[in-house]
Every structure is written in C-alpha cells, then in structure tokens.
C-alpha cells in the first residue's frame, strides 16, 4: 500500500502545474477552557473545541500559496469524532476550498491518525504539499507530521518560519532549538510543519463563514479506509491536571523602578516577548 502511494506521488509533481495542498487540522479543546478529567484517561468534552491554533498557521500558509497561483486546491483534512466537522468549517471559512472528515468514534493516537490521513489523502488526490501545525495543543505529541511523511515516504520539515515555492520544490527555513535557523530545500510532495512565526492567521468575517457553508465536506468513516492496523498502539492510561501554583512576587521601588523591574521579569521568567 505504501509503495503504491509512492508510485502515484512522484510523477504527479513533475508533470502537473496545478497544486493540491492538503492541510491536516485537528479539533482540540480551547486552551481557555477549564478541563475536567472525568475518568482516569478522559476529559469532559462538554467544553469549547476549536481548530488547533497551530494549524491556523498551516491553513493561512496554504491560503496564501493559493493566492499566488490560480490553480491551487486547498483541502483541509481532519481525523476525529463527528464534532470535528466544526474545525473543518473553520478552515473553510479561512479560505480552504473543501474538506475531508475521517470520522472516528474515538480520538486516535498519532500512528492511526497519520495512517488515516495518508489513506484519506491518497484516496482523494495527489498531494503536492501537506501542511500541518507544528503540534496539536491537546496532546503536544509532535508526531503526526513525521509519521505521515514516513508513511508517504516523502520529506518533512518542521518549525517552518518561511516557505518559498520553486517549480517542483520548496525552500523553507526551520527554527532550531538554540535560536538558529536551517534552510532546507525539499522536492514536492513534502510535509511542512508550520511555526507560529510563519504568518498571522486571518480571522474570517461573517461573509467568509457564509461562503464556507456552501463548500464541500466529504465524510468518510475510518473503517472504510482500510488502514493497516498498527502492531502496537499508544494508550493513554491516566491524565492528571497541571497543578497551577500561584506565587506572589512583590516589586518595590519608585514607579519607574518597579515598571523596569516588572518588564525585566516578564521578559525573563515569564518569557513574554516584549519589544
């Protein structure tokens, strides 16, 4: 199955000009929501869920690339429970052309998610670029993009802060741990994990949202994708809430002194990027 995918993928890029950009998006709990753990490994899902904020950068990048070339199709793909359709609608309102929802009855691990994404994408068309956010804010796994690229046997770069498209390749800059950057050229198709610094995602307007209502969302059950069951799965055994400890810090001195000190602490300990 993987080899067949390879066979389809490679020639496609060389002979075609129109681009298919697949953007993988995840339906995640709102970071502002109060998360309640109801069973050892479940959260109470009766909270606001939304398009993974990191994936907004991926959708934005795809929509900007589309603006540069007329003949580009941006397809948002998600794997998740029925409610995840709302996340596809958000991606469509931001400018994606259509959506694919791989419907599951549970939240799969990154092995199954990557295989489901791969199968859904291959079934749909021939990708030139696959974009994802650098991670999902719920599981923080940083895995799916790599597993998806491996499954498709194509290159992947993550933490991407700029994308330049050439004829059949892309040049990207990747942020490195120590603050450095790496410039990478990858043949298309390839997978790009977008960094927050790549762009500022647009906010849709109501007319965008209304237009998105008419866009196609194809639903396919994960059972109909006949993905190869993995030999082993990741299983979340227990979830524990983060204990937030508030510490009071007093800043003494004149107004000027205390403001300077406050800014220093915000920039330092709190790592808030103040200019």
């Amino acid at each position, binding site marked *: 199955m993987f080899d067949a995918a390879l066979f389809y993928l490679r020639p496609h890029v060389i002979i075609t000009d129109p681009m298919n950009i697949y953007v993988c998006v995840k339906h995640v709990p*709102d970071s*502002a929501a*109060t998360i309640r753990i109801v069973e050892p490994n479940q959260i109470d899902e009766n909270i*606001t869920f939304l*398009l993974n904020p990191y994936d907004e950068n991926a959708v934005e990048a795809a929509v900007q690339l589309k603006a540069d070339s007329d003949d580009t199709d941006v397809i948002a793909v998600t794997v998740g429970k029925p409610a995840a359709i709302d996340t596809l609608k*958000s991606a469509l309102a931001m400018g994606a052309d259509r959506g694919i929802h791989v419907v599951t009855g549970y939240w799969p691990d990154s092995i199954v998610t990557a295989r489901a994404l791969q199968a859904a994408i291959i079934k749909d068309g021939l990708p030139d670029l696959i974009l994802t956010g650098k991670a999902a804010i719920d599981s923080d796994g940083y895995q799916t993009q790599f597993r998806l690229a491996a499954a498709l046997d194509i290159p992947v770069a993550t933490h991407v802060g700029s994308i330049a498209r050439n004829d059949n390749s892309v040049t990207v800059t990747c942020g490195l741990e120590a603050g450095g950057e790496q410039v990478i050229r990858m043949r298309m198709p390839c997978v790009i994990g977008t960094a927050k610094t790549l762009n500022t995602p647009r906010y849709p307007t*109501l007319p965008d949202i209304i237009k998105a209502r008419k866009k196609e969302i194809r639903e396919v059950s994960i059972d109909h994708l006949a993905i190869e069951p993995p030999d082993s799965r990741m299983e979340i055994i227990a979830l524990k809430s983060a204990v937030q400890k508030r510490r009071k810090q007093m800043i003494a001195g004149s107004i000027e002194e205390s403001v300077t000190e406050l800014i220093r602490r915000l920039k330092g300990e709190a790592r808030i990027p103040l200019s």
Partner: protein
Amino acid sequence: MNKKYDAIIIGAGVIGCPISYELAKNGYKTLTVDKLADAGMGSTAASCAIVRAHYSTVDGVAMAYEGFKYWLDWENYLGNVKDEKGLARFMNTGSILLKSQGHDWRKVKSNYDVVGVDYEEWSVERIKEAVPVYDLHEFWPVRRPEDPKFFDPPTRMLEGAIFCPEGGYMSDPALSAHNIMRAAEAHGSEFLFNVEVVAVRDDGNRVTGITLKDGTQFDAPVVVNVAGPHSYKINQMAKGVWDGCNIKTKALRHEVMHVPSPEGYNYLEDGYHTSDGDVGCYYRPEVGNMFLIGSEDPKCDPQEWVDPDEFYAGKGGQGRDNQLTEAQYKAQSYRCARRVPDMQIPNQPRGVVDLYDCSDDWIPIYDKTDLPGFYLAIGSSGNQYKNAPVAGVLMAELIDKCEKGLDHDKEPLQFKLRHIGRTIDAGFFSRKREINYNSSFSVNG
C-alpha cells in the same frame, strides 16, 4: 461586645459603595462587608458599564439620565478624592438606538420628550456617515446561527436611529466602585473584605446585625442587602424578607464577547455605543480595538438561571459555569457581524461571563422590607450600573426617612433627582409592586 455601626452594607459592588458613601455623607457610621478581596470585584467587574438613557419606562429614563450627570462629573461626585489606583473615566461615545422591531423606540422617544433628554433623529444615511462599517439592512426577527434562516439575505432597510450625544461607558467598572469606596472612606466609612455574611440577626422586631462565617458579629440598626447576584440568598437569611417580596430576584448567566473590529476601522476611537434590537445585541468599543458585544435577551436565546456559588466556583457545568460557550459566542458575534459584516471573528472565543441579579420584571428593587431596618438595593437586572450613584442617593434618603418614621409602603418616598430636577415616585421600585408590564423584560429594563 460586638462592634456597632449605624448601618451595615452587604456587598461592596458599584451599588453598595455609593450607598455607603451617601450614608456617610449624611453622618451615618457605616461598615461595608464583602466576601471578595476588594471593591467592585463581584459582578460589577464584568459589567459592560454602558451608560445610556433609553428605558421603556419614564422613571427608568429619568433615573438613567440623572445618572449621566454623575459620570460626566466624576471627580466632583467623588469629592475630588485621591485613589491610588487612579480614576475610572467616562468614555462619551454617544449612543445610537437603532429604530427596529426589536425595540419599542417610539415609547423611548416619548419618554425622552417627557424627561427632556437631549437627542437627535438620524436617517440611515446619517448613521452610515457616522459609522461606515454598519450594514443597515433589517435582519429581523432575531435568530441564532443554528437556524438555517439566520443566513437568509435581507431585503429591507432599517428606518434610522435615535442618537443621544451623551452616552457611552465607563472605562473600568471595578475601578469606579473602588473610587467610590475611597470617597466613602474619606467620610469615615469602613470597608471589610474577605468576609462572608452567613446570618442576618434580628431581635424579633427589627434587624440587629450580621454574623460572618468565622462567627464574628457586627451590630447595626440598619442592614442593606446589596449582594448582587447573591441577593436572594441574603434575603433568605433575613426573617420574613423573602416571603414579603412580591418581586423576587435570581441569578441569570450572561456572556459578553470581545471581537476584533474590521481591519482599518478604529472602532475604539471612532465608534459609538449601539443598541441593536434588530439583531438582539448591544455593542460598544473595548480596549484593543474590539467590539464588546452583549445580548439583549431576544426570545431565541436560552435563559440560564444558575446558583451563584456554583457559577463562581466554575462548578455549574457547561452553560451554567463561568466559561464562554461556543454556541453563545457564535450567536452574539454572528448577529453583530450581520450589522458589521467586515468584523473579524476569531475561532477562539474571547470575553467574560457573569451574572445579572435579575428581578421578575427586570426593574430593580430599591426598598425597605418587612423586617424593620433591613433594606434592599437589588434586582439590578443587567442595567443598573449606570444608575449606581443615583441609587446611592435614593437609598440613603429612603433609609433616613424610613428610620425617622416614614411608612414608605403606604406613602412612598417622592424622590427628587437633583440634577434633572424631576421627582419620581420611589414606590416604582417597591418589592410589593405587581410585575410592571411596561418593562421590556430584558436588559433594556
């Protein structure tokens, strides 16, 4: 020996603080207690703090118009007191009431004429000139986005608007309560925070004081319930008070959204407070060039009555706790975006959720009770922030007159509004009244 005061005020919100202030100015030795850490930290902190005159009753308009005069002259009202936190500011944006089927604006207009409110009638063209980002089609009836008809294209235009040049909002409602507390302290008022009232004591004839959770007791011949969304709980602590109220209060959950203004439009500097019954929303500028959007309680919106203790502890569950819900975020932001189509709607909801202390007819209760010495300034129903300074004067006068023998139930206090010179029958706010069907039964009062 319990410490003694002339009056104890339960609740240091924007309504409790001016009552302490006015009583202190009249020579009362007051103690104001609050279970939170500072003045204005209760429902006042989440208030939209909009100051507008349109109400569905003449007395409602008169009270609000009188209130303006205090906000416009804030420093003088406070006796030029210093507050280390700074002073709240009145942002006089002017106030647009769109003429629509969602508001009985003809009644408002005639109330304005009776009270003498300064206003202009605006055509659609004039509104468009003032606020170019508004789409002035009619979208009535108010619907929620779950209803497919919500997205139907409009066919007709609105008629216009009533514009009040005086009107706007206070920059920081919690700070405004804090300012009033400092002014009250300057007249000898005492404030005690982080203390919870658990009992209202009486001697069989009249109120004698309060008991705190840690057992401390304070004595006073006058106790005033200004506990905001907890008002009904305090009423139930005072003998005979709950049963003696024909109008009851309870806590209603209300969500307020902050949504970015259209790109290139400076709503913060150039925008107006707007009441838009046509889409069931009110909106005003907010820091960060945001539209602050509240719901005008149209019929299609569910009413979520909650237990305030569960709500504030975040334990009520979805739609009953202090977290924004996706459904209401979409309802309010999409409705407002019908009027402001270029408004930017982030995927992530932003805003605040708090509680109205809602009365049966959405008109407040400023009154005595069946327990002598126990008074009520409750049922603010999402619309009494603007009246807080006036409520302070009214309550201080009512308390003083009743303590000196006035039978307010039989011969209601005739209350003179100092600035606009009108006298209103304070019986209008009686706990014994029948439900006032002139009310809009919404935040519009």
